[in-house]
């Protein structure tokens, strides 16, 4: 497992969080921590997620898959911690 931090901005609409979380489960992504906070703008929320990916799998693919979601306004892998083995 490698650990990656994703920072996202979501539209504040019903079902947006569910769509992101289902993408994690259907693409085999471990979620280590997840926080969702309102922003000063009422129409978007900020979401920070720490995910675990199987060794050898880069977060780029996941970022692109998240970008496809209509309610995801932006997503970036803020810190690539690929070398930090979870539990090491």
């Amino acid at each position, binding site marked *: 497992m490698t650990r990656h931090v994703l920072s996202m901005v979501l539209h504040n609409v*019903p079902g947006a969080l569910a769509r992101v979380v*289902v993408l994690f489960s259907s693409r085999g992504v471990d979620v280590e921590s997840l926080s969702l906070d309102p922003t000063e703008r009422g129409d978007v929320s900020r979401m920070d997620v720490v995910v675990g990916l199987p060794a050898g799998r880069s977060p*780029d693919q996941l970022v692109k898959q998240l970008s*496809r979601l*209509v309610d995801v306004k932006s997503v970036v892998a803020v810190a690539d911690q690929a070398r930090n083995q979870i539990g090491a």
Partner: protein
Amino acid sequence: MDTVTGASSLVRALEDAGCEVVFGIPGGAILPAYDPLLDSAKIRHVLVRHEQGAGHAASGYAQATGRVGVCVATSGPGATNLVTPLADAYMDSVPVVAITGQVNRSVIGTDAFQEADIRSICLPITKHAFQVTEPEDIPAVIAEAFALAAGGRPGPVLVDIPKDVLSATTTYTPALPVHTPKVTPAANEVRRAATLITSASRPVFYIGGGVVRAGAAAELRTLAERTGIPVVTTLMARGAFPDSHRQHLGMPGMHGTVPAVAALQQSDLLIALGTRFDDRVTGVLDLFAPNAAVIHADIDPAEISKNRKADVAIVGDCKDVLVSLIAAVRQAPVLTSWWAYLDGLRDRFPLGYDWPADGKLAPQHVIERIGTLVGPEAIYTSGVGQHQMWAAQYVGYERPGSFINSGGLGTMGFAVPAAMGAQCGVPDRAVWAIDGDGCFQMTNQELVTCALEGIPIKVAVINNGNLGMVRQWQTLFYQGRYSNTGLSTHKRVPDFVALAEALGCAGLRCEEKSEVDDVILRAMEIRDRPVVIDFVVGEDAQVWPMVAAGTGNDEIMTVRDFKPLFDEDL
């Protein structure tokens, strides 16, 4: 701004979106929408017999016309019956909008009668799902749903509307045009691709369904002819390049032709357009095209380098990509020895089949004759299994969109409702469903719809009495232990001719080689109702060539245990 009900607003929004036909079944929660539908002069409603049929029909319509297909169902079980066709449309990138009724807003979440959280159920199988909570939002949501379904990489979109939203009084304000952002292929990547193409010695165009969706067949032909590079078309791209063209090597993959599979395996440059390196094409990924550089162009950036790392990545619509490449590729590569090798394979390993030892009809012969007699102007649909592979191999496709089948999800029962939808979209073309006896028993109820609605499809049931592809695997990998694959359809249970008549269709049967042409011609002459032909074929026929699951493409077998490429060097 007119005062209307939510339901009228929905029907007007559908009309404004260009919708001309919807496939559906009414029920409690969607009932308000059916009242104004009765008065619509622009929208034809086709009353299906099962919601799954509505969904596949919408997909068949979309694939035959290039427009968005629409299906309608009520809440709860009506909506959940759409799950399979939505998953199917998602895998094959088909623009479909599904409209479902929902229970009243006040009881959502209370386990009300016929309540299902369809929006959540469909999360992983739709591009997007809306639940309309305010009646005035209906026009904008429908416009956005159509734009999302058709824009970028196409796919299914769900619009769930509570009953009280449909019944409420609201105002109709036509939606503003929805802007779909368009990606222009990056010029530097196109230049790098052109350089690789010009200098390659063993290049191949690996063409996927994205070329069909983009309407880019003409551009593909221009670039292919300018460069002289061989072309392979995947299951979803059959027809994107004419089968009769000298540069076409056929379909690659698990049941691909030897020259098509060899062209990928021995290639030094894959030009992959609108394709996703699916496991049915690549076999074991680590052994796929081991010496090839990869140019991968796709409208969906998430597909690029998903399975195979791309050396040149071009994000964009296949038509735009091809137009850019046509402008950038100035010189054709020298391919004399490459073509000598491929032509040699073509001569030595053509597609072929044996006649069954028991004297029964060869299914491949039946399908080949349908393709020949009905011709390339028709649309062919298929279910999933042996008959689907034979339909991909033995019908000659000359036009994009002329073969409509369930590729990614592999949905048995797709053929009949997809043919129904396709026929509604292109009433002037012949539409033939090439189906299996297993698939046919899953969705043949839609023949009632076809008979009553004047949708004169033809259905060729390739009846081998078995779940044929599963049986083939049992023969090859389970020591011939035929667990639960016999369907008794050779004992006439059901009798497909009598069943066809009962469903309001003409029923024909063919058991002899000498009758095949006659029965196809007779079916072509019947235009006042749908036709079902029961082609009783041998149960032991197998689909060859084959790359067994879990092996590399080099181990392609033309017949059992014969591997022509395995030890061969280029």
